């Protein structure tokens, strides 16, 4: 399959990219790794008039701790996340996810920023962002602004990014003692979208009370989903087995999956229940 006609433009700097976007208009699309956008173009689900290649822009690929934040440049590839010793040591949830995102050759191209900005609830990074309460730094012709993850995903492939804006940095609260995180998804085979996935981040105080918790779900609703009711249930409490059972039940009730090739709605609710419980337990294990 060959995508339908479009004009390719390479941006060497963010300024270049914004200038191209301003002159080409709203039917132009930015491309980073291209492993979500190009398949859609081949299938004619997306038919942009112009592609602005931002993958060669320098200075947008990094993973560092600064100002009490973990800052990840949006062009950091999934493989760079997978091989980072900082990630391995302190942010294991990304390691869990990296291994399950597409396959190794695709991860050589795919970027964390693209995975998020694509706005697909089936992608894995969005639910991690929800669990970790990420802040997104986006830049456009009129400068930079911050968007909280809870204001970012609007609908099927819809985000609050303006067509001329680029997600440039992902910010996550820096690792603190007593925190733990975990992600897993059920997939039929490597490279498939998730049947369901759950991302959990939590922080415990010295007496094991849950100070902070975030739970994000993959591919069980039109937009990446925050499991607010289970977060409210667990926050401020010592997380007991009974509470975990209850959180799993909430997950199965509140998710909004539809029946498809990956399973019936009822099956997906059941998988979401199990994954949510398992990931709370895994995050607790890592926090202690």
């Amino acid at each position, binding site marked *: 399959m060959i995508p339908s006609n479009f004009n*390719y433009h390479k941006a060497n700097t963010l300024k270049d990219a914004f200038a191209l976007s301003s002159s080409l208009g709203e039917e132009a699309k930015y491309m980073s790794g291209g492993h979500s956008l190009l398949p859609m173009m081949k299938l004619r689900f997306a038919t942009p008039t112009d592609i602005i290649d931002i993958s060669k822009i320098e200075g947008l690929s990094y993973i560092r701790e600064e100002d009490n934040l973990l800052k990840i440049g949006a062009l950091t590839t999934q493989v760079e996340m997978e091989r980072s010793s900082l990630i391995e040591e302190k942010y294991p949830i990304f390691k869990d996810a990296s291994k399950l995102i597409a396959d*190794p*050759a695709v991860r050589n191209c795919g970027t964390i920023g693209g995975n998020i900005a694509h706005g697909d609830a089936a992608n894995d990074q969005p639910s991690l962002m929800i669990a970790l309460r990420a802040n997104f730094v986006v830049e456009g012709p009129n400068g930079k602004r911050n968007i909280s993850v809870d204001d970012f995903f609007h609908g099927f492939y819809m985000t609050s990014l303006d067509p001329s804006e680029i997600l440039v940095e992902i910010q996550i609260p820096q690792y603190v003692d007593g925190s733990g995180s975990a992600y897993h998804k059920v997939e039929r085979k*490597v490279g498939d979208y998730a049947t369901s996935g759950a991302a959990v981040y939590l922080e415990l105080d010295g007496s094991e009370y849950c100070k902070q918790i975030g739970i994000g779900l993959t591919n069980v609703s039109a937009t990446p989903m925050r499991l607010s009711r289970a977060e409210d249930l667990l926050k401020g409490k010592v997380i007991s087995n009974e509470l975990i059972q209850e959180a799993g039940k909430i997950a199965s009730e509140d998710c909004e999956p539809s029946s498809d090739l990956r399973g019936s709605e009822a099956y997906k609710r059941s998988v979401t229940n199990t994954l949510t419980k398992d990931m709370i337990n895994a995050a607790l294990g890592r926090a202690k």
Partner: protein
Amino acid sequence: MKHEITLKINGESITKEVDSRLLLVHFIRENLSLTGTHIGCDTSNCGACTILLDGKSIKACTYLAVRADGSEITTIEGIAEDGTNHPIQKAFHDQHALHCGFCTPGIIMRSIDFLEHNPNPTEEEIRWGISGNLCRCTGYNNIVKAIKQAANEMKNETV
């Protein structure tokens, strides 16, 4: 829209004109007549089109040729030095690690990248390492054995 691109393929520098929408795999097969790189699923699932772009294994069916401007590409045709099989090719031969052979070039290219980052892999790591390459003859056991053999031989070579 046409673009002039210059890149190195299997050590040779070339300059060609390509259309914006030309896929890298078509460029390699049709413009350069290097047909060892196969097209299988055409949707970045099967890995038959795997090549090395600046040393990284990528699926050439999901990459625009124009984006490869300035890069260095290695395909299956470029790995046997002076007619001597690459250690991974040799291991595939020794272990009978191919049946119909359609997936073989992609798996070998992927394995080069994989072994460079994990020179001493376990069987499980090998299976994860080639998880984006499908063999529909399902000859995985011998493929895994071949990659293990190649790992051992390449390790000995560098010592």
